[in-house]
């Protein structure tokens, strides 16, 4: 999948180990701009580790990673909007503190858009982080993330911690607010709920890429949904 010249993310032979366990094993991948990529794999396949490397949270690995031609540095952090799978804002903060912080640090952050999203998600800017549920926290982080006009969006399990009704709302928020000229990488194991938005899918198994294809071509060629393919590829792993 390297026919496109607009390469935004280039990952070459990355290996990351936690003790004797390899989270990423000689992992290589090239992702182009203007696409929505589904990063799919079962729990423990290395999705979160890869996303944390791209976000600049993991530094101790072998291999090379570049985003827009830069190794991970303040520039890449300025163009990457990262959504973690867990809440991480300090508990003393209120929603409006988080908005102010993003406004202070990210030049591509749109305060009005964020306020609109916060309102749309029925959150109160004066609400403190510690009083918010996990679902509310995820919506808040999503609003901050999608209010950025970023070149790369990295969303780690954006629908993982919310109920099915809220998933639709989150999907709608992502699709109607992201920068279409940018690259969006979404990791999930809830493939069925989200597969319709993918341009490309990357299947990861035990820290390596097992498949990287155009989503529509894959559906036509195999005559099955991405979800069915996911089940087929990872069926045996569930008990291993």
């Amino acid at each position: 999948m390297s026919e496109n010249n607009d390469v935004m993310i280039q990952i070459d032979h990355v290996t990351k180990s936690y003790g004797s366990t390899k989270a990423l094993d000689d992992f290589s991948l090239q992702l182009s701009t203007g696409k929505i990529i589904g990063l799919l794999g079962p729990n423990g396949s290395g999705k979160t580790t890869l996303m944390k490397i791209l976000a600049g949270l993991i530094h101790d690995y072998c291999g090379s990673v570049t985003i827009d031609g830069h190794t991970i540095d303040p520039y890449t952090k300025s163009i990457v909007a990262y959504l973690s799978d867990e809440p991480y804002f300090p508990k003393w903060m209120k929603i409006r503190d988080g908005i102010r912080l993003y406004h202070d640090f990210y030049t591509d952050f749109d305060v009005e858009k964020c306020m609109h999203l916060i309102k749309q998600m029925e959150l109160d800017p004066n609400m403190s982080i510690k009083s918010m549920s996990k679902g509310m926290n995820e919506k808040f982080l999503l609003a901050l993330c999608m209010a950025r006009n970023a070149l790369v969006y990295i969303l780690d399990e954006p629908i993982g911690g919310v109920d099915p009704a809220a998933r639709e709302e989150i999907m709608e928020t992502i699709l109607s607010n992201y920068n279409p000229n940018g690259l969006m990488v979404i990791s999930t194991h809830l493939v069925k709920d989200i597969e319709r938005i993918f341009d490309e899918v990357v299947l990861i198994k035990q820290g390596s890429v097992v498949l990287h294809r155009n989503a529509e071509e894959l559906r036509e060629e195999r005559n099955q949904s991405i979800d069915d393919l996911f089940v087929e590829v990872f069926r045996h792993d569930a008990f291993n």
Partner: protein
Amino acid sequence: MMRLIKLELIQCKNQYMTLMFIVMGGFFLMGFAGYHLESVRGMNAMEMVSTIYGVTAFVFMMGVTLLCFVVLVRVFSTFASSMFNRNGYLYNTLPVTSYELVASKIIAAFIWLVIFGLVLLASMVVMTIGILLAVLMDNMDIFRQLITQVDLRYVLNRCIYFFMALFDGNGYYLFQSVMMILSTISIGYTIITLVHLPLIQQMKKALRYVVYLIVIVLMILAMEYIELPFLDTWMVLTIIGILGYGLTSYLVAHKIDVAG
């Protein structure tokens, strides 16, 4: 950089302000309650004041030591949690260099320590107010005596004296003090960062604490025994602090994994 320092200062504002109010309140109560000691109440005004200040000066020094310890522990634990634990997601994804990030944390911690120093000086005045209020509520005659015999300016002058002593030697002592505080914070951050290296984090918890202790002991030994010609102890400490700052920033940018 200013945005980062602002963020750092805001981050600890509530906890530190609460601690300051507790300290001030504690010293006020110390003064207020000191007057009500049975042995003090039989004294004349001057004896009363000197006794109360004698006792409270001792407690004051204990309080200062305890507070310094509490604040330093708080400064270091805030650094660890905001850099290497889940809150670290926020700080480590900001579009700033690790040098700016670490420097802002050192400067913000320094500012808080200075504010705490000023609060401690102010608490001497607060303690005096506590004594005067206790006397005023109890015995108007002694209060009049105290007001005429005790010069409140003396207390204020003592506070200012401590503060101004820093400016002796054309600011040399002040500079020396500033550098020593900054270096101590920086070295503390370096120790915490070294222990958060993936290699050490993969060790068993008990072993990690052993490594922690070894690193601390090595740092203390380095400060104790490194003697360089023409350099005072504070200069050696400053050099180690600067090297520590560089090392911390490098490790944060290249070697550290933020834990989930």
